[in-house]
């Protein structure tokens, strides 16, 4: 009997403790379950309703926004559910067992909210800094929504902001770049050491959505040695790296669009060996001169090795032609 009484007493104490702590979350509606003042939403979209993120990524977790910067309530700038989805009274007030009407603004794949309206929602907060020129960007003007690439309820992992996972998001639309990136000569994007945004600023209106205001300025961020100026400059190098290089990937070494001498002969036509026909020496058995060396090995660059520019001051035409 003593044991039973003790159990009853414990039950009462536990019950009281439970009664004290259980309503604590519900009573303070302004605090919310995950976002500020979300009680109206999370009374339905609670942990039992949540499509917990799984291996296949089939279900969408509403509450996982709590793992993100948006879900950091201590930052007074963070949104409520209705900041993004609208008051959604019809959705929230829906009674009955049938499917409720959608919230005022939705952002998923099958959303009926226009991309402009979706983007305006994000721009309520994200308009300054790097997003300054979003409205005039190519993406914005092709009906791309912020949520076409970004996942806001994302289990704390927004793929497009992860260097290694980002290309997969970009390849959703950019198929040509997907095939180029798996060519033998490529930037280390498939290996996760660079991302598309290493070179591109997709929120800006720069030409080709580049991170900098020109192709060369973008390339110089990693290839600063090409900036020069050199004592002997190679004209296309000063104009646009993409005249000779295809930065997404090629079958020719060093991301060249075409191999020597074909590439070089798109501009150069001279009386001597630069006009040579493409081909390979049959063997090394006899003397090899410049008229046989434009294709094999590094092609024209076997000799014209400083093709991006030369700082040689030797008093020789050799130096001026990027051979020194």
């Amino acid at each position: 009997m003593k044991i039973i009484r003790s159990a009853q007493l414990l039950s009462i104490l536990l019950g009281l403790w439970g009664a004290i702590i259980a309503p604590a979350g519900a009573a303070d509606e302004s605090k919310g379950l995950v976002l500020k003042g979300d009680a109206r939403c999370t009374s339905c979209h609670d942990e039992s309703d949540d499509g917990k993120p799984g291996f296949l990524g089939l279900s969408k977790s509403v509450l996982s926004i709590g793992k993100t910067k948006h879900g950091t309530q201590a930052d007074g700038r963070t949104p409520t559910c209705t900041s993004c989805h609208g008051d959604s009274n019809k959705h929230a007030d829906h009674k009955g067992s049938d499917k409720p009407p959608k919230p005022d603004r939705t952002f998923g794949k099958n959303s009926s909210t226009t991309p402009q309206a979706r983007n305006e929602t994000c721009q309520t907060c994200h308009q300054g800094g790097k997003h300054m020129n979003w409205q005039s960007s190519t993406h914005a003007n092709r009906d791309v929504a912020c949520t076409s690439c970004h996942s806001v309820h994302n289990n704390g992992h927004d793929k497009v902001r992860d260097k290694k996972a980002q290309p997969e998001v970009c390849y959703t639309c950019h198929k040509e770049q997907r095939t180029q990136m798996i060519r033998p000569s490529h930037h280390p994007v498939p290996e996760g050491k660079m991302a598309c945004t290493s070179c591109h600023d997709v929120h800006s209106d720069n030409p080709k959505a580049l991170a900098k205001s020109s192709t060369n300025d973008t390339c110089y961020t990693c290839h600063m040695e090409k900036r020069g100026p050199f004592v002997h400059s190679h004209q296309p190098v000063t104009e646009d790296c993409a005249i000779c290089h295809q930065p997404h990937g090629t079958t020719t070494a060093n991301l060249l669009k075409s191999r020597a001498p074909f590439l070089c002969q798109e501009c150069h036509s001279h009386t001597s060996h630069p006009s040579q026909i493409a081909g390979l020496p049959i063997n090394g058995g006899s003397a090899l001169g410049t008229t046989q060396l434009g294709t094999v090995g590094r092609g024209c660059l076997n000799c014209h090795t400083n093709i991006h520019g030369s700082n040689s001051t030797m008093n020789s035409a050799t130096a001026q032609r990027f051979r020194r």
Partner: protein
Amino acid sequence: MHTLQRKFRLSATCIALCSAFGAAQADEEVDALIKPESSVSVGVGQWSGDRHQQGIYDGQRDGKAYGLIDADIVRRDDDSGTWFRLKAHNLGLDNGEISGEYLRQGDIGVSLEYNRISRDNPNTFNTRLQGIGGATQIENSTAGGKMNPVTLGTVREQSNMGFYKNLLPGLDLNIAFKNEDKTGTRPWGRGGSNNFAEFAVEPINANTRQLEAVLNYTTKLFQLSGGYNGSWYDNKYNQVTIAAPGSAVANARNPTYLSVPLDNEAHQLFLNGGYNFSKATRGTFKLEYARATQNERLPGTPSTGSGGGQTLASAPDRLDARVDTKLIQLGLTSRPVQNLSVNANLRYHHMEDKTPVRNFASAGDSPDYVPFSYKTFTGKVEGTYRLDEAYSLTAGLEEKRQDRKLPVTVAGTLKDVVVPMRQDLNETTARLELRRTLSETLNGSLSYVHAKRDGGRYHAADVVSSNGVVNIENQVNPLNIADRERDKVRASFDWAPSEVLSLQFNLEQGQDKYKTSHNTTPDYGAGLSSGKSQLYSVDGAWTVNDRLKLTAWYAYDQSKARQSALRADNGGGNAGIKSYDLQDSGNSLGIGMRLEATSRLNLGANLEWTSTVSKYNQSMATFNGAAATYPANFDAGLEDIKNRMVRLSLFSVYALDKKSDLRLDFIHERWKTNDWSWLYANGTAFTYGNAAGLDGTYVTADPKQISNFVAMRYIYKFQ
């Protein structure tokens, strides 16, 4: 009665326990959903064979065991909104990275990162060259010196720092600093004294620093972003000396001096602003001013005379190079009526090389410094009209006008050039796109772009007529300035026939037509005449059931170039015109599978396959009508180059308990190529130098690679 009492007691106990631990369990469940997650993964993997090609960037080039250490540790103090993050990736590999961040969200933040990017050259260089990696290299003749197999490559070691501070409501300061040390070696070369190619290795030992400081001011109506960008390049070397084979006495070895990039720096100020005139109209502006300089002392001095130094006594010892870049851009986006949005943009970009034109040599074709400057005006207007709820139509026009400075001599007269040039270049681009959006089943777009480029008259190249050709320099229309008409069509459709199946189709076609003639005499219209590109791809995703998902994609792409070039009568070949028909095509396939096999076991598989073919067809017509002749010991036929890669990746993740997983990986990888770049036509290795005993370096390019990878990782997860 007894029974009832017991029932009551059990129910009371149950309710009490549920209200106490039920709430605790619910809290735990909620926490699992809303609190940031962390994970640490430790494992070991082994490649069975070398991966010369596939391992160039991933730090796993050799067939050996590797440590696999990754971590993503995230803590958030909910009361203060403070984040602590430690992230590590590939710590056991040569390309590891680690970063840490402290952020009191909306207030202050600091981040630090260390990152290594290694890049291995896929080939092995068998050479007698000594001193590789340094600024003095010694070449030995085939008669002396030991042949060593050498692998070349570079490593970038980056240290990044970031700082963020919210100064006032709407006013943020961001500072980013990046320091990079790049070391290693890169294949290089030089034309030998007898027109032979000789091997050299460029030593890489440079430091770059980049600093960006930005102030962002943001209100609902007005946004401003301004700051400073600085970048510095510092090369440890300023010249490389290569001693030629011959005498044992250093001075008698007739060294070759190869120049390297010299130190340079750039400083940029920028201001970017936006103003919302109304909910429907926004104006923006961008202003940038940058100054780049290169003033390092050139190797040697006039007094040193010959060799690596300046040989023109009066030449300055510095380039005093300065390039100024200005950008002014104005933009307007507006929705004047409900269904129409307009985007207009005016852009002025001027890259002006202000380096003084001076003589650094007296010999050769172009002894003066040649500054190249480009002033580009671009105007763009684009409108999108929403036809109905589903369809919208976009039409746009862009006009680009470029003023290109022609090279001048010290005396200010137009300089002789080796390639024709153009002072004015204009391009007009028109685009039209029809889009369907907001449908649950079929969305997509159809677009067409037409661009026309032309320009002013050509500044002809210096005319040299010899070896059976006349004015050959001007028989080519360089690809970057030639008149060109470009057409591009793109169709893209997303089709979701059911909730579990989605398909995506992409078709892209592009065609460039170049005007090869620019009214020269004679005019054989050489250069690039046309280019074509096409891409067809299909992607699919099928959710078979709530445990199995399949994805697949296939793409075919092709690019073609047709070009011609004149050939002079020298080196054993007769004069004529060559026609090149170049083609690159690829087939690529990806298949993915994800399976929740049991509540504890997840399985995944990925297959990547790609096959490319590069074709180099060429023909030659001689001016004298005779059969084409070629240099001795030369084959003008080039075999197609085929590359094939297949990679099958399998993995399983088994949940040992709620907090830990065991992951097993298996990869089978194959790579095959018949790339002949480093081969003679008879299939033997191309050798630098000549048969008379110079150099003798040859390159081994492994044409086949098969390797398997097995790995096991223990993953611990926590919150």
